[in-house]
């Protein structure tokens, strides 16, 4: 189905930039609000095929919807296309992106009251550019295009943190930039290597992420252990390079250190986008690039990745326990939660994949909510020291209730979205056919306890207890703040109580990806069985 709707979706924010720059600065926020909302509405029209039974018919790659291929560069044997399309992996993320971006545009409404409120035009233009970059990355099916959009996100983020951020913004911004660029240069090497490897097979070469995974000869050659890259097996080197590129974005220990700094210094709406969407890009990269294209390496690395995921879960949670900065705590909780995503992907079971994907979405809802909740209180108190708060629920009952809901969703309380993701990942890990899977699942389950520990302790210190008098006069959440929180809260409950509606959007594609992986998994298990495992 050829459709230009995705291209419109991607470039609508760019049109918005033109308006933002042309109009006087005081209208910038309204224009941005309108455009992000329009993008959100437009993205809702994408629901249509995914609600139908035939949406996921056929193997991986054949059931892309709203696909569009336009030749972009065709020179000297290089074929680079404007190739966009969505399936069950990217579609929920696109909806998440448009929704969260709209909400954070709304959260930027108080721009003129910020400490640094210069150049609203610049802020909102970069904001919209960021949305273009993210949507483009999710929609791109051409690796070259994917790479371009991946980098397009970097610049706006750098400036959004660097210009409008907190006291240590310069440090945080350049750290974010350097880390992510380090990942992307690895990706660039892989991009070239994969292109020329595919050219060796087919003669013409391709950048299509789908063809890499589904073209029988290319896929075979990529995973051919005899194919070497500078003396190492091709698949493993590529997998590791791509994985490092993506894991920096997720972020996975030990490349996570940019995240707390970037989050703490970024303004609230940018933190929302950063946590809610940008982190998901790394996980999306695993699912779109690393796994379907290099199944053999994925199986080879499964153990290490599961352990890395485990480290993320436990380490992130332990760090949370040690934080007194409210925002930093939420940032570290993101690291812990993204550990579940990696773990779910690493075990390569149906339930694990579903859990990982669900966790991506659940975290995409709950973490922006948490950051916004922190932002609300920061706007009033101008500090984020957990130990100086207390009894906020008494002075701000509406805010307190929503905050509790948001943090419980993050905690993984049954009935809210976080629970489904975590439990699915744990179940998937436990049932995985790997010899190491059960101990890993048990340790990972311990992470849930730690999560409950730091969140409950935080809620107790901030929202419960005796109301301190300096906070007694605080106004409750305003109408705008409530309006921003309600959709996220509603989604958290909806996804927690009726997860099947969300699963239905993506399960088909996840199963397709697993089908691609299955031969490699079977081969690896045969080895385990043969060894008497």
């Amino acid at each position, binding site marked *: 189905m050829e459709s230009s709707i995705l291209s419109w979706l991607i470039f609508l924010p760019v049109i918005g930039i033109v308006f933002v720059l042309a109009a006087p600065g005081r209208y910038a926020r309204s224009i941005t609000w309108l455009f992000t909302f329009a993008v959100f509405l437009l993205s809702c029209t994408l629901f249509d095929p995914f609600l139908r039974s035939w949406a996921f018919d056929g193997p991986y790659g054949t059931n892309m919807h709203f696909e569009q291929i336009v030749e972009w*560069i065709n*020179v000297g044997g290089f074929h680079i296309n404007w190739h966009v399309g969505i399936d069950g992996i990217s579609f929920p993320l696109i909806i998440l992106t448009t929704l969260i971006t709209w909400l954070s545009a709304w959260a930027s409404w108080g721009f003129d009251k910020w400490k640094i409120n210069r150049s609203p035009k610049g802020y909102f233009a970069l904001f919209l550019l960021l949305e273009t970059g993210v949507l483009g990355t999710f929609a791109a099916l051409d690796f070259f295009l994917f790479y371009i959009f991946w980098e397009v996100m970097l610049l706006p983020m750098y400036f959004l943190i*660097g210009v409008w951020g907190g006291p240590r913004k310069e440090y945080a911004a350049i750290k974010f930039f350097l880390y992510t660029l380090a990942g992307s240069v690895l990706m660039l090497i892989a991009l070239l290597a994969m292109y020329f490897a595919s050219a060796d097979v087919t003669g013409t070469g391709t950048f299509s992420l789908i063809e890499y995974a589904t073209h029988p000869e290319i896929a075979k050659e990529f995973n051919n252990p005899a194919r070497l890259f500078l003396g190492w097996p091709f698949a493993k080197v590529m997998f590791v390079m791509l994985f490092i590129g993506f894991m920096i974005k997720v972020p996975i220990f030990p490349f996570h250190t940019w995240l707390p700094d970037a989050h703490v210094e970024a303004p609230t709406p940018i933190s929302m986008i950063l946590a809610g969407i940008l982190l998901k890009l790394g996980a999306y990269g695993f699912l779109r690039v690393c796994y379907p294209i290099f199944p053999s390496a994925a199986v080879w690395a499964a153990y290490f990745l599961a352990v890395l995921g485990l480290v993320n879960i436990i380490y992130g949670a332990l760090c949370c326990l040690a934080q007194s900065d409210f925002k930093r705590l939420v940032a570290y909780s993101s690291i812990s939660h993204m550990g579940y995503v990696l773990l779910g992907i690493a075990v390569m079971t149906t339930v694990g994949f579903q859990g990982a994907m669900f966790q991506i979405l659940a975290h995409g809802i709950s973490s922006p909510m948490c950051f916004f909740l922190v932002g609300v209180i920061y706007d009033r108190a101008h500090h984020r020291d957990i130990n100086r708060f207390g009894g906020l629920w008494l002075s701000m009952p509406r805010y307190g209730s929503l905050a509790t809901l948001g943090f419980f969703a993050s905690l993984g309380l049954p009935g809210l979205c976080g629970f489904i993701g975590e439990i699915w990942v744990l179940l998937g890990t436990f049932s995985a056919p790997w010899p190491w899977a059960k101990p890993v699942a048990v340790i990972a389950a311990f992470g849930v306890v730690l999560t409950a520990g730091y969140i409950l302790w935080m809620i107790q210190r901030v929202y419960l207890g005796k109301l301190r008098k300096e906070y007694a006069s605080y106004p409750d959440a305003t109408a705008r703040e409530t309006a921003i929180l309600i959709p996220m809260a509603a989604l958290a409950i909806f996804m927690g109580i009726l997860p099947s509606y969300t699963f239905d959007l993506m399960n088909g594609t996840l199963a397709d990806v697993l089908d691609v992986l299955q031969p490699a998994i079977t081969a690896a298990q045969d080895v385990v069985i043969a060894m008497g495992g």
Partner: protein
Amino acid sequence: MWMPTGDELSMLGPHWALVGTIVAILIGAIIAGRNWRVAGTIAMVGGLLTAGLCALGWKGLGTNWAGMAGGAGGVPMLVADQFSYFFIFLISIFLVLIAGMWFLGQDARLPEKLARKRDATEFYVLLVGSAFGMALMVSTTNLLMIIIAVEMTSLPSYALAGFRKKHRLATEASLKYILFGAVTSAIMIYGASLLYGQYHSLDIVVIGRAIVEQLTIGTTEAGGAILNAPTVLMSVSIVAFMIGAMFKVSAVPFHFWCPDVFEGASIEITTWLSVASKAAGLGLLLRVVAVLAAQLGDGAEQTLNWVRLAVAVMAALTCTLGNFSAYRQTNMKRLFAFSSIAHAGYMLMAVAIILPTGGAASGAAHPAFSAIVLYITVYLLMNLGVFGCIAMVYWATGREDIGAFNGLIRRSPVIAVMMVAFLFSLVGMPPLGGFIAKFWLLAALFDSGPIGILLVIVAVANTLFSLYYYARVAFAMCFSDDGQPAIRVPFLGQAAATVCALAILLIGTLWAGNIKTFSDERSSNLYAVTKQAEQPVEEAVKTAELDFRE
């Protein structure tokens, strides 16, 4: 006695135009006196004329090449092909832009304002003179002509570097430049004399053939030559000869002149040297290496391995050292001097991979040539933009240190935004042209074997290193505002910067394919790679000697 034919003379149209421009500027000065407007206008018109002739030339040439003064073995003194026309085009367009920059800076309140106006004639004569040297440099394979061209480029450049009279740094720059240039020229001439001594010819095509004859010890069944190991003397003399071009390109370890000269020279000259000098040096290097490789054919890889390794190591060192040295610079011109060294390193990498000339004989575009043509085109725009912005800040504030850029986003938003685009294009961030340039370069490197892949790794690592100091400038402009007053910049300057930035953005997006096609065309059917052996060496040398005696 040899006389040039009409065709041969017309093929040198761009060269004539440049020489004519020099004479015209002088005549203009004789008639109109010291008038900076007249001199500048003539230079600009001359540059445009040259560029137009080049564009006509590459249309007219098609897949042919033309040579002038066919001497030994049918080897011409000067060559006109797509490649040489392209480089002359680039240089003359750049000449026009530099002249425009000088015009814009004329109204700035600078201490040297009076001298600038008075000495404009000399400035333009020297500028066009060095451009002419560069034009010769990219269109010859003759050792003597190369040496003359390098000197013709260097001598005006020395004077231009010290053009700010009574300015200490400028004097220092000029002196350093001369000393360095003299030493490297000496090494180059030494290499040339060694080559001549061994192979009795001044032309690289003939030398290449002579090398094949010298090394051949048998033939394969397919008829190809089996070559002996190369002699050390041969490798040494080739590398020594290439050092002259390395100096122009400012490759490590011949880069020491670069930061000092860039800092001391006035900003127009800095801009000029940062692009034109490198472009010409690269054009020369490419041609020398490609000619040798083409003559050696299948044996090139083995015979020139040593040379290739030397160039590869130099390239890797050049970009790494350039990037790391830029970290601590606070003077913007120095900072971008090191940045230009780093970029020279990226481009040199392509020279290192030129040897396996797969399909070169068929006249297809060589990916390395094409990558360099593309890179230098984009690099011209980026560097012109960056130095243009530095110049405008300098004209307004009289300062060249990074502190003058603090808060520029408020003081002059247009300049700051454009500068950001140039900076990140230099880093190689998509969707800007710098990325496309880097991408094609890396693709060419990657496709050429293990050395190329290692160079790719060095290059992308350097991209990462370079981010920090480029971001530092962006950081000064956007993040650290120390309340300096807003600056006034000429409207034309803003417009020019905007056009440059737009062009870079378009190259990075819509024109990404077109510019590759363009550079493929410019680098297709090079004279050198098609010029395979036509005449045995003995005869060629004999003809040359006869010519000489006559």
